């Protein structure tokens, strides 16, 4: 279970998150919505351990462990996965090579034997099919020359292979056409399970038409200002974020 209590985070001396609290239980899907600059991406980056963010107060624990004390790779081993808004290209390193290294790092940490080449190939083929990805993707350089949609699909494919227990998806819907959005959403839906929680960070309601969240939170001014069920997203789409800003201030 993810427990965020009164989290305060600054970037370059400017406070972005101003006392954010959130509880996410296994199996739940949470959507975090909010206007640009409200701190949505900051939240996912801080939880994943990116440099450049200063935690000035509050806590974030994951199954009772202090998440913020761990280096990024240890958070990954503990089951945290970040789907990037802008996945980076790593020329010359094939998709499968990175994934196998990642999967084996995680397995070693869990005291499991490394996965062999045949078992791994079987696994990635199966997951690629799920994401309707051509197998040629597997051997291409990580995100090298991928279109925006292909990059996002690749993120969900990695999620499917690494099987995290907490998936933070940062603006996964941005830059996707409707067909790509459907593929990404159906990939996420097929990965929903009682052990796995999702936190979807999104600006638009669009994605939530395909992935039904259990909770919708509105992040504004560095705090969660409203929490509701999926109907809140529809309401926001109609009234806009401005309507929320005034009472929250």
């Amino acid at each position, binding site marked *: 279970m993810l427990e965020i209590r009164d989290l305060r985070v600054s970037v370059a001396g400017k406070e972005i998150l101003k006392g954010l609290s959130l509880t996410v239980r296994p199996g739940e899907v949470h959507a975090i919505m909010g206007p640009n600059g409200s701190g949505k991406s900051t939240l996912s980056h801080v939880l*994943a*351990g*990116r*440099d450049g*963010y*200063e*935690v000035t107060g509050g806590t974030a624990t994951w199954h009772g462990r202090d998440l*913020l*004390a*761990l*280096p*990024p*790779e240890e*958070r*990954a*081993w503990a089951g945290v*996965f*970040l789907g*990037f808004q802008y*996945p*980076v290209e*790593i*020329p*010359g*390193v094939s998709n499968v*090579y*990175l*994934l196998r*290294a*990642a*999967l084996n*790092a*995680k397995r070693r*940490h869990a005291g499991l034997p490394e996965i062999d080449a045949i078992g791994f190939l079987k696994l990635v083929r199966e997951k690629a099919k799920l994401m309707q990805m051509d197998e040629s993707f597997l051997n291409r*350089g990580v995100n090298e020359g991928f279109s925006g949609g292909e990059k996002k699909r690749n993120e969900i494919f*990695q999620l499917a292979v*690494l099987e995290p227990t907490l998936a933070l998806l940062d603006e996964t819907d941005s830059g996707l056409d409707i067909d790509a959005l459907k593929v990404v959403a159906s990939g996420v839906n097929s990965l929903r399970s009682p052990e796995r929680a999702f936190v979807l960070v999104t600006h638009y309601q669009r994605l939530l038409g395909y992935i039904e969240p259990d909770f919708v939170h509105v992040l504004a001014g560095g705090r969660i200002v409203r929490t509701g069920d999926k109907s809140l997203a529809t309401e926001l789409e109609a009234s806009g974020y401005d309507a929320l800003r005034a009472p929250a201030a």
Partner: protein
Amino acid sequence: MSAPQTDIEQLVGQRYRHGFVTEIESDTVPPGLSEDVIRFISAKKGEPEWLLEWRLKAYRHWLTMREPNWAKLGYPPIDYQGISYYSAPKQPSGPKSLDEVDPKLLETYAKLGIPLHERARLAGVAVDAVFDSVSVTTTFKDKLAEAGVIFCSFAEAAREHPELVRKYLGSVVPARDNFFAALNSAVFTDGSFVYIPEGVRCPMELSTYFRINQAKTGQFERTLIIAEAGSHVSYLEGCTAPQRDENQLHAAVVELVALRNAEIKYSTVQNWYPGDEEGRGGIYNFVTKRGDCREANAKISWTQVEAGSAITWKYPSCILRGDNSVGEFYSVAVTNNRQQADTGTKMIHIGRNTKSTIVSKGISAGRAQQAYRGLVKVFPTAENARNYTQCDSLLLGATCGAHTFPYMEVKNPSAIVEHEATTSRISDDQLFYCRQRGLKAEDAVNLIVNGFCKQVFRELPMEFAVEAQNLLNVSLEGAVG
């Protein structure tokens, strides 16, 4: 954040694994260079008179030459009288078999991962082991002889096959070619000699392993490879040296001759001691390597992984004389701490339809400086010559430098010459991406660097590709946080 810093500079350290010294009694001449020293070397090697004359001529010319200073390298003047030009472990003259070789030498090579006992050796690789100024042993000679292949130390070739040595020595790199080549021609001690007869595909990989051991000595080896018409050979050299505070000079010459339809593939994994973090010690590596595609349809391919040495000055080149001949240069150069490298290639197109490919990957870290220097020259005779050059630099951290000096001289309008160059950094974004997927920071750097070098590594013989990859990882090894 309490997470360890991902600062890339902290990931880049250095640990040299071959820095030990072998305690062995050696015959070493006192430092200094003179005609007497050259006569001494020639006599030690039992050389024919003409070869001594060749050396002396080179020496007299060298005395009139000046050390080149055009490279982007900075180092204090080298005292050529402060170097010993001959050092050899004491052992019965010309051991007949491995049983006669000093066990300490065998142990040294075993420690370096080069077992010389044929039983223990990787099947399919013959090794010539050169220790300071002499060849210790050459493995699989008998098996190679069955195929007509000659693989032996240079000194032995000068005695046993003087007609071949006399015909080809200096025919690709003349004794007067440049300052370091002239010095080498005067004082070269050992190295390897390879002769592949017409139509023969060499049945195994050939490899020479160079080891500098004695202090205050230089190593000046000479390698000559001749591939007769329609033959094929793949050759690999490796090199290491002990860790010392002084600088040691290594000035080698390699000559390759490929005749009609012949192919020579020459691979180098260079791991001389690079000096410490502050730039104390390390090998000065001034090397002249050149291949001559002397007849039609010949092919010469250079692949190098340059990870060691305090200073590297090296431009393995191809003279594409025969029509339709092909030259290739694939290079990975890694410089860390205070290392400096000025390296590249020359492709000289003379024949018609000659083709050359240059792929250079430079990685700089610490306070290292690295330059790619390349020349593509197309003669008026080189109708339809083609060259493709790709030159990529990867910087780790903000205190290192990468420089590119591509020269092109095209004298035939039908030629097509292409040049692409990029400079990039390992970004914090790439590192974070890999770490978020579960890779440790060091593993992430290795993954990214290896991806960068992949195009070159896949040109190496398979056994050595793994070695090269590991070497790269060690060269960039350091502690996180």
